[in-house]
């Protein structure tokens, strides 16, 4: 009996070990922006149905799942910012990306945390991601105008741009709930 229990504990440990890699990478990026002295409060945030539907309708892209990973970044009692990790579907596989916001909901940074496709990996380049800095829920996100196109990564560019726009709208709705 003790051995079976041991097996289950070990399995849970192994699962956790792999499952948390992306989360760890995201938290490293967030700390890189705000500094290691800040407190990161993680929450798997279940998307409210109405909020989800309204944003999907506006951006014309569905959320990848019913929940997103969120962080609230604080120092003592003051809020420094927020971060949301989400996925969009590329040509065939999910693209995992992180958007970091200031306390008012303007973008401080975007980052492709994991790209799984053979083509289109250029969206991970820092230069492409710089175009999103300063954008918020009232900004436009038009590829070729506000956001650069990438030859050979058309579907990924469209998909991730819409994903970032969705999170910019979402943060305005949920920041008081994090």
């Amino acid at each position: 009996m003790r051995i079976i229990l041991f097996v289950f504990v070990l399995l849970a440990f192994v699962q956790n070990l792999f499952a948390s890699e992306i989360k760890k990478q995201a938290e490293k990026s967030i700390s890189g922006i705000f500094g290691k002295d800040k407190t990161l409060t993680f929450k798997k945030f279940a998307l409210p149905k109405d909020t989800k539907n309204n944003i999907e309708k506006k951006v014309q892209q569905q959320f990848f799942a019913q929940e997103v990973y969120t962080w609230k970044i604080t120092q003592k009692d003051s809020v420094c910012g927020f971060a949301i990790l989400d996925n969009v579907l590329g040509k065939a596989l999910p693209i995992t990306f992180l958007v970091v916001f200031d306390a008012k909901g303007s973008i401080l940074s975007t980052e492709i945390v994991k790209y799984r496709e053979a083509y289109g990996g250029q969206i991970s380049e820092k230069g492409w991601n710089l175009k999103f800095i300063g954008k918020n829920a009232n900004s436009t996100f038009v590829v070729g105008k506000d956001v650069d196109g990438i030859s050979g990564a058309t579907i990924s560019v469209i998909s991730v741009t819409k994903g970032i726009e969705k999170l910019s709208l979402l943060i305005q709705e949920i920041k008081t709930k994090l």
Partner: protein
Amino acid sequence: MNLTLKLTLLSSLVVTTSVFAEDEFFTPKTTVGGYGELHYNYEKKDGSDATKILDFHRFVTFFSHSWTEKWSFKSEVELEHNFVEGAAEKGELELEQAYVNYHCNESFGFQAGVVLASIGLINEYHEPPTFLSVERSDYNNKIIPTTWFGNGIAFYGRKSGFDYKFTVMEGLDGKKISASKGIRDGRQKGFKSNAEDFLYNARLDYTGFSGLRVGTSFSFNDATVGKDTTNSVSILELHAKYEANDVYTVFEVANITYGDKDLAGVETSFGYYLDFGYNFGTFLKTEAKIIPWLRFEDYNTAKKAATEAVEKANHYTNWKVGVSVKPIESVVFKVDYGVKKQESTKTKTKQMNLGVGYQF
């Protein structure tokens, strides 16, 4: 601990490690994509009657399956000209891509099956919303024939803004290389390919500057002509594309050298084209993109040939203007007008094309 329990523990660990080596967002999945384009082509050559064609030029489906994050299958099936009935004139059904993909990480992966030669901008990325004209440029027909696919294997990766691909695939059919068509008819298209002599193709791009892709490729093949005869083909090609801040510019140039001019009657092929477009949708305060554009191209499939007459006969220049309208990023309406000139006789061919294309 008895043996059964030990084995149970070990096998459980192996299975669990294997299952959870994927991250929490990946699930095995089959996906479908595609693109297509309907064209209206009007053409009037000096001294000839005009021709008018309405053609659903390409209908393409992508079908792929991902078993794990690293192992997947990708395919692209293309129906050209809507209808297939044996003879080439009745259309073509082509398996342009069908490969097993191992994506180890960002810097290394490989594909094995029917793969694309990594030459130029259009061969690998040719969905209608990605280029401005209704038809692909003449350069991408006469000099670098697209779509160029074949049986083989490719290694690829990306590191510090550089993107590389090295492909070994079926070679060209040396018997079908000609002064008037260059290497176009030499593609074996994966049909029971002669595997005597492979094509080696290496491409390096830089994409570290946002909006820009600039790169070069070199390809070599001892194209089989007869049992003990080959015609060596070397292709050196440069390409650049910039699409940002409402600007769309493209430049491609290539030189092909043939080792034995007596075999095909041609020693070199050469060509280039330049596109410049600007999105006026921003001025008009619409999210739709309205891109007027201009193209110039110059190409000669027999830049150096056995006789001067052959060299002159295959030299063309081509001016083209057009407008490309994208109401959304994945749908495009196009119109263009151009004059192609055969440089020795000065014979002009006027072309007007309309098109609608999509991708998903």
